[in-house]
Each structure stands twice: as structure tokens, then as C-alpha cells.
């Protein structure tokens, strides 16, 4: 069978399944509901996807749903975007960050213990960022002290997505304070139900609380839950961060393209459908959305053919974040004063909901999280354009 036929078959198969299974009217049923209802809906949607094998196309052969090529994964994400299916926000860290880290760096015992649990719906969160370690992640201070066959954890993590519902945490902690900051980090798997873990949701500017702070007060982690060697945490964390690179933005940029029709609706609703200035603004956004899609696609093709260069992923993320900002800004402008009336929001929605002021505020997720625009620009300038790195010698009082 030619590869064209197989990809077409897969596309049709996924499309038909989604048509049958995407919860009808999920946007309306998720509008203004409490988070518990959202969590229940996510669990149900995850269950369906996992059973059909569409939750784990990126897992290796041998796992349910696994063994899909990048090209096949791309088809699945494109179809998910096309069907406007809910995103698996609650399971993202488990399915991508945790699973890929375990597959790449975990021991067979860890894989046997945790991967089936993820498949059956365990929720994971990420404990990387700290109040004083954001862009400068390597400066993190949460301590892991070795005591016999355990690590004792003390410190605080923040911006952990959905940590209030998580069963486990991917924890990056400091085991050594001497030497360069990257060298003293160790990667641990922490039970969120363990004694001494406190989670406090962060109330966001949008009224949502997708993120949380996590406090650790003498929390014990058995030594067999360490991934990689002690002091190798930085390298393991890179594997975590690389796991989703590219695929997410293929899906999200496609979703943005499908959402352009919301701007057409907004023009109509607000009486500026024939306004030439609004049209020009729309033209600019359409072009940028097209470019964002093309860039994400090209990036994935490069990954498939093994031609990915350092910095390519940064370009995709920078462009997407920019296009999304422009998109939501235009929606906000078109919707006028009415766009300023606070509306109840859709839980677990994508970046574009037509609740324009909220969408605009949410677009900052993409220019801040996962390596801020400023960090991405450093990578592009230093690694792609060959410009010099920041001097590191600065100290308070010397400036």
C-alpha cells in the first residue's frame, strides 16, 4: 500500500471517530462551570481517546495506540484541531512530559510502574519553575537531601499546571549547592499525596485557576523514584522539555486557522463587516496565521527528516505567540466596548474562544510559559545568528 493511501486512510479513520465521539456542544457545557465538572469531563474525554489509541500516538510501538510516525501523529493532531475537540489539558504533562522522560531516561522498573498508570488516567504535574527561578531555571533552590534510601524535599514550586488535581509531580530539585548551578540538580518523581505536600491554586487574571503553587515540607521521596543519576537532573529535564516540541504547535496553529471564522463573526456582530480598516487588520492576521501554520509544518517536516537545527523550535514558538497575540488583539478591538463586559469563560477551551479580552490575556501564556519570548530570542540570536552570549559576571553593587 502506498504511503499516500495509508495516510488518507488514517485521516478518514480519525475524522470519522472524532465525528462520532467529540462531546457535542462541549464549549457550552463547559461555560461557567466549576472546575470539578471540567475535571470530570477531561477524565471522560481522556478515557475515550486512550481507548481509541489517539491519546498516545507518540508512544513507542508495543504500547496501546503507540508506534505512530511523526507524519501520522501530525494527521491525528490536524484532525483533532479540525474537529474542534477539547484539548487534554489535564493529561498533557502525564502523556508527554512524564511518559517521554520515563521512556528516554527511566529504568525498566520505573517504566513498568508508571507508564501503565499514566495510560489508565493518572494525572501528573511539573515541578520545575520556582518563585525565584523562572527563565533562569538552573538557579532553582528547592532542596533534596539524601537520607539513607530517601530524599527529603523542602522548598516551593510554582506555575504548575493543574497541580491541584495531580497524582504525581516531575520534580527538579537541588542536591548540591557547590559547583555550577546546572550540575547540582536531580530529577525525582514525587507522590503528590505524600505527607508534607501542600498545593495552593493561583487565581489568574482571567478568573481561572489552571496553575498552582506547591509547597514541600520534609516530603520523602524513595531513592528508586530518581530518574537518571544524582546531579544529572538538568540533562533529564531537557528530555522532558523536548518531548512535545513541535507537535503541540502544529495542532494549535491549525486550531488558530480554523478559528479565523470567529473574527468574521465578530465583524458581523459588531457592525464593522464592511469597515475597510478592520478588513486590512483582518488581512494582516490571516497572513500571519498562514505563516504560523507553515512554520510549524515545516518544523515537523525537518524533525521527520532529521534536519532540525538548534533554534528552529524557538522560531516556531516566537511566531505562533506573535500571531496569537495579533489574532486576539484584533478580536478585542473589533468587539469594542462590549468586549470589555466580563463574560463567564469556557473551561479547558483552546486559545480562541471569542471571549476576546480573555483570549487576549490568555495569549500571554504563549509568550511567557515554556521559555519566554525573551529566552527564545536569546536562543535565536546566540545559536542561530552566532551573536555572543550574555556576560555572566555581574554582581549586586558592581553596576
Amino acid at each position, binding site marked *: 500500500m502506498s504511503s499516500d493511501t495509508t495516510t488518507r486512510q488514517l485521516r478518514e479513520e480519525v475524522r470519522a471517530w472524532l465525528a462520532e465521539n467529540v462531546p457535542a456542544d462541549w464549549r457550552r457545557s463547559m461555560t461557567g462551570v466549576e472546575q470539578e465538572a471540567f475535571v470530570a469531563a477531561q477524565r471522560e474525554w481522556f478515557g475515550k481517546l486512550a481507548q481509541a489509541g489517539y491519546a498516545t500516538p507518540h508512544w513507542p510501538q508495543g504500547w496501546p495506540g503507540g508506534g505512530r510516525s511523526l507524519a501520522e501523529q501530525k494527521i491525528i493532531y490536524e484532525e483533532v484541531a479540525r474537529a474542534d475537540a477539547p484539548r487534554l489539558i489535564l493529561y498533557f504533562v502525564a502523556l508527554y512530559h512524564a511518559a517521554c522522560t520515563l521512556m528516554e531516561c527511566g529504568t525498566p522498573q520505573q517504566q513498568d510502574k508508571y507508564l501503565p498508570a499514566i495510560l489508565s488516567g493518572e494525572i501528573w504535574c511539573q515541578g520545575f519553575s520556582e518563585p525565584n527561578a523562572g527563565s533562569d531555571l538552573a538557579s532553582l533552590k528547592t532542596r533534596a537531601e539524601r537520607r539513607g534510601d530517601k530524599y527529603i524535599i523542602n522548598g516551593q514550586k510554582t506555575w504548575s499546571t493543574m497541580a491541584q488535581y495531580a497524582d504525581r509531580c516531575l520534580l527538579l530539585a537541588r542536591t548540591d549547592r557547590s559547583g555550577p548551578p546546572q550540575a547540582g540538580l536531580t530529577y525525582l518523581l514525587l507522590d503528590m499525596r505524600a505527607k508534607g505536600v501542600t498545593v495552593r491554586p493561583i487565581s489568574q487574571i482571567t478568573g481561572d485557576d489552571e496553575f498552582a503553587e506547591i509547597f514541600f515540607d520534609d516530603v520523602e521521596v524513595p531513592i528508586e523514584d530518581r530518574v537518571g543519576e544524582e546531579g544529572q537532573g538538568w540533562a533529564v529535564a531537557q528530555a522532558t522539555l523536548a518531548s512535545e516540541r513541535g507537535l503541540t504547535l502544529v495542532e494549535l496553529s491549525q486550531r488558530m486557522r480554523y478559528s*479565523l*471564522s470567529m473574527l*468574521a463573526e465578530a*465583524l458581523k456582530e459588531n457592525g464593522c*463587516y464592511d469597515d*475597510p480598516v478592520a*478588513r*486590512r*487588520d*483582518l*488581512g*494582516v492576521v*490571516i*497572513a*500571519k496565521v*498562514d*505563516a*504560523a*501554520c*507553515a*512554520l510549524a*509544518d*515545516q518544523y515537523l517536516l525537518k524533525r521527520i527528516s532529521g534536519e532540525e537545527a538548534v533554534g528552529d523550535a524557538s*522560531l516556531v514558538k*516566537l*511566531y505562533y505567540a*506573535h500571531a496569537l497575540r495579533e489574532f486576539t488583539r484584533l478580536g478585542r478591538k473589533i468587539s469594542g466596548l462590549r468586549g470589555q463586559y466580563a463574560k463567564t469563560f469556557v473551561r479547558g477551551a483552546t486559545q480562541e474562544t471569542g471571549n476576546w479580552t480573555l483570549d487576549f490575556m490568555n495569549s500571554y501564556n504563549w509568550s511567557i510559559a515554556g521559555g519566554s519570548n*525573551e529566552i*527564545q*530570542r*536569546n536562543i*535565536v*540570536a*546566540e545559536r*542561530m*545568528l*552566532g*551573536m*555572543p552570549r*550574555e*556576560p555572566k559576571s555581574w554582581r549586586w553593587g558592581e553596576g
Partner: protein
Amino acid sequence: MSEYLQEIRDSVRQVVADSGLAAGHETVWPLAVELGWLLTSVPEELGGLDLGVAGTSELCQELGRGLTEIPFIPAVLALEALSHCQWSDRASWIERFTTGELVSAPLVEADLSIDRSGVDQVLVSGSATAVQSAEEASHLLLWDSSSECVLLIPMQQPGLEFIKQSTWDEARRLYDVIFNEVAVDSSLVLATDEVAGKLIARLRTLRNFSLAADAIGASSALLELTVEHLQTREQFGRPLALFQALKHRCADMKTVIAGAEAMLQDCLRKFASQLGEDVVELKSKTAKYLASTAFLQVAEEALQLHGGIGMADEHPCHLFLKRSLLSEHLATSDMTCEVDLATSFLVGTEG
């Protein structure tokens, strides 16, 4: 990239490097002919290399890097029209236009009326602007969508005048051409009616892709020039490239170029064999728009980042700036593109 394409692209790169920025027509055109650049997209059965629009785009990108003066894009358009017409002697025309005789075409839509009521001749009136190197050309390729006609018109004849326009960008050598009831033998009509409509869409699409590639090449070269300047120029005891405020602006330039380039490559990958279709013409317009707006952004930033030396005539910075300002208005101007993209999209959502 095929071996052929790589070879021919390398030859362009070499010539551009050897002859320097904004190299003149007299130096480069004979080499373009000798090295077979014009054969790039001509089909194999007509003696060409059959590398299609992807091939000519590569070359346009290289020529754009050097702001090279030759009328490569108009010649490619004329050769495309000849390759896709029904003329029995098209091979000999293609041979003429690939072995030294120069054919040109307007880089914006011409304002023409073509009277097709005569039996053995058509009458052309109106004007064409942005015709590159018209003075050296033996023929022009012209089209008019309202009278559904594509034709070749000889330059030397009564009723046809041309005027050199001195544009800020001197390396395009643009002319206005005025047609005063110019009689053209019917045998020079390449296509009419529906066939002409398709061919015109194909030519506009090709023009958009070519100009996009040209702008991408030029903006990439200009970004390199700017980074090099920042690496070498020292102030406050350190190279300017060490200042994050400047590094980030370079990263932004790289990002807009990457977006435009990805769009062009995406189009070439998906649509190279569907050039006459409306949806492809629209995509090509998006590609040209993204490329020329990226080029403008890069050119504006580059001048600022070069500081005083960028304002000096001896430095090449201004050549890129002027090329970018002109590119904004070639094919469809950026402002019109914005409206067109929105309008086509809205029409699509209504249906």
C-alpha cells in the same frame, strides 16, 4: 533539492558573489544566458531543465541576495507563458529568449485595453508600468484580464513609447511603456478567453512567488550584513552584538523572515503543479505579502542598527532599504493585499 538545481543555484551564488552587490545588467545578463539560468523552469521537451517554480524561486532568492539588476523575473514569466501556450513554433521562441534576446514584462498589473475585433491583428492601447529593462528588450509579455488576452508585443514599432523612470532603487531599471493603438499581429497572441484567464492566473502566481523569493533572499542577506556590523562595531568597550536589546531585534528579524520563507516553501511544496488555480493565486499573494513586509521590517531595522554609517551612500544598507520600499509596491501592493486576503476569506465564510 535536486542535483541540477543545486548546481544552477551554486552558479548564481558564485556569479552574485563575484560581481558584487547590485551588479549591472551588462555584467550579469551574458552570464545568465551562458550558464542557462533562463532554462530553469522551461519543460524538458522544450529544451529546459524542468525545475519548475521551485527552481526559479531558488534562483530568485539568490539574485535577491545580491540585489542583482537583471530582468530575470520578467523573462521567467514570458518563458512560462510560451511554455504553456499552443503555438507550434514556441520552441524557437523559447530558444530566442534563452540565448540572449531579452524579453520583459510589467511587474505590476498593466492598464490596457486590447481590441480583438480585427482579423489578423489586435490593437493595444493603454500603459504598463514597472517594466524592467524595457529599453534592451525586443519583446514584452502583456496580459489583460478584462479582454482575456495574453500576447507578446515587439518593442520597436509605431505607437509604442517607453520612458525610463528613475526610481530610488536604481537596480531594477524600471520603465513606463505607453501603447497608442499599437497593432500586433494575431500570430503573437498567446492565449485568449478562458485559456487566457487560466494563463494570467498562472503568471500572476509565478510573479508573486518570484518576488517573494527575491525579497526573502534580500532580507536574509541584509540580516547577515547587520549581524556582521554588530559583531565588529565596538562601543563602550564591547561589540554591539553583546547588547541584548540589539540581539533581540535581530532575533525578531530572523523570525519574520523564517515565517515568510516557510510560507513560500509550503506553497511550493503543495501547489507547484496547480499554478493556474484561484486558491493558489491567493496563497501566492499571501507569500508575497509576508515576504515583502518581512523585508520592509528588516530593512527599516537594519538602517537603524547600522547607525550613522547606514545613512552613508558608500554603505550598501540603503540599497536594500530602497529595494524593500519598491518591493512593497510590486505585483499587488501590501495595502491592497491586506484587503484582498480579508475579502477573499470573508467571501469564503459566507458560502
